[in-house]
């Protein structure tokens, strides 16, 4: 298992690889990204409920989009893993859940904050990345569980409440506390 330190170096390293893809369409850099992230994206998509074959196909598609839209990548705006998370999530909701409204809504929201008026950049700097990762690892067990059920299983508050036998209000306040804990020191910090 890699240490926190190695993980954090990864963030800068992958952003660098992605810059090479976006500036010079460097295939070797792209394939390094592919080799590292494709299995992770596939695991994520399987967790959301796609059968193996579908997860595999959508993973290929997600990585292909990274290549196709590389020139839109802005390292100052988001880390590579965040960008990939959004692509994979959007593909899943569009193709598997077949919610046709999702993608246009996301696109419209994204257009509202063009980089030039984005104010202090929410860049995922090395320090921020370490900080957020530490905070995730230090979440109390219940908060960590609810965060995972939300992100990796796309469970609604009510579904989580039913599954764990918790009151709905407790699920919400617990998730809220987890978010605030992860946010401290990261947001508006730079």
């Amino acid at each position, binding site marked *: 298992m890699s240490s926190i330190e190695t993980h954090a170096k990864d963030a800068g390293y992958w952003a660098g690889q992605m810059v090479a893809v976006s500036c010079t369409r460097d295939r070797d850099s792209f*394939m390094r990204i592919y080799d590292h992230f494709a299995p*992770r994206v596939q695991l994520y998509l399987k967790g959301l409920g796609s059968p193996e074959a579908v997860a595999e196909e959508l993973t290929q598609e997600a990585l292909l989009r990274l290549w*196709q839209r590389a020139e839109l990548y802005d390292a100052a705006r988001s880390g590579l*893993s*965040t960008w990939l998370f959004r692509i994979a999530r959007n593909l899943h909701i569009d193709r598997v859940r077949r919610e046709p409204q999702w993608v246009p809504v996301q696109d419209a929201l994204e257009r509202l904050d063009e980089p030039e008026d984005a104010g202090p950049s929410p860049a995922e700097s090395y320090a921020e990345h370490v900080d957020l990762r530490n905070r995730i690892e230090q979440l109390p067990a219940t908060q960590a569980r609810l965060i995972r059920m939300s992100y990796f299983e796309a469970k609604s508050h009510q579904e989580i409440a039913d599954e764990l036998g918790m009151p709905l209000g407790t699920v919400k306040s617990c998730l809220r506390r987890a978010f605030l804990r992860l946010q401290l020191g990261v*947001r508006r910090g730079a």
Partner: protein
Amino acid sequence: MTPRHHLNEATLVSFAAGALSPEMTAVAATHLEACRDCRDNLAHAERIGGLLLGQQQAAELDAAKRGRLRREMLDRLDESTQSRHDGTIQARSPDVSPGDPDGLPQPLRAYFGPTWSALRWRWVAPGVHMIRAAHTSGDTLLLLKIAPGKSMPVHSHQGTELTQILQGAYDDALGHFSPGDAADLDNETEHQPITAPGAPCICVAAMDAPLRFPGWLARKLQPLVGL
């Protein structure tokens, strides 16, 4: 218009995770379009998603399969460089130009049509008009128009109710709600909104369980509203 009442952070986490129903998503997105603070929070919630994605320990695929997928990917890199513009088609709303005051918030158009002027309000009770979205996933999505200075019945919720104020205003125990504000409520909240004088209050609300009205009014109003 800077909103003073925001989405609960738990709702933003679920939005980022893709864990809201399409109807809750539509109401949350209507707030997000109006609220820079919540968009910043959403960006943070997506960063958490990115980190969790990168943190996963992926099992090794067998070498043959991995090799096949890699070759397939490399082939597609060549074929796809010309057709990069696909998939970047803008959301089309041919009948409303951006900034047209008659245009409904974009996330609501799929449910209620593109413009305010084409809405077909239905009378449900004195001073209350409503449009209920058809073709929902199971949650309820409503546009409500409530006459000014009107007191709504006290009610609570079995589940989550997410409301975004579009026009007019109301007051309840939680404060004053005006356009741009969101009321993100769960089953522990009981409230009685009173609309402000002047203009009708129009809001959009998504709920994942029926409303509960206490007492005699419930028996009168519930069948009428059909909730």
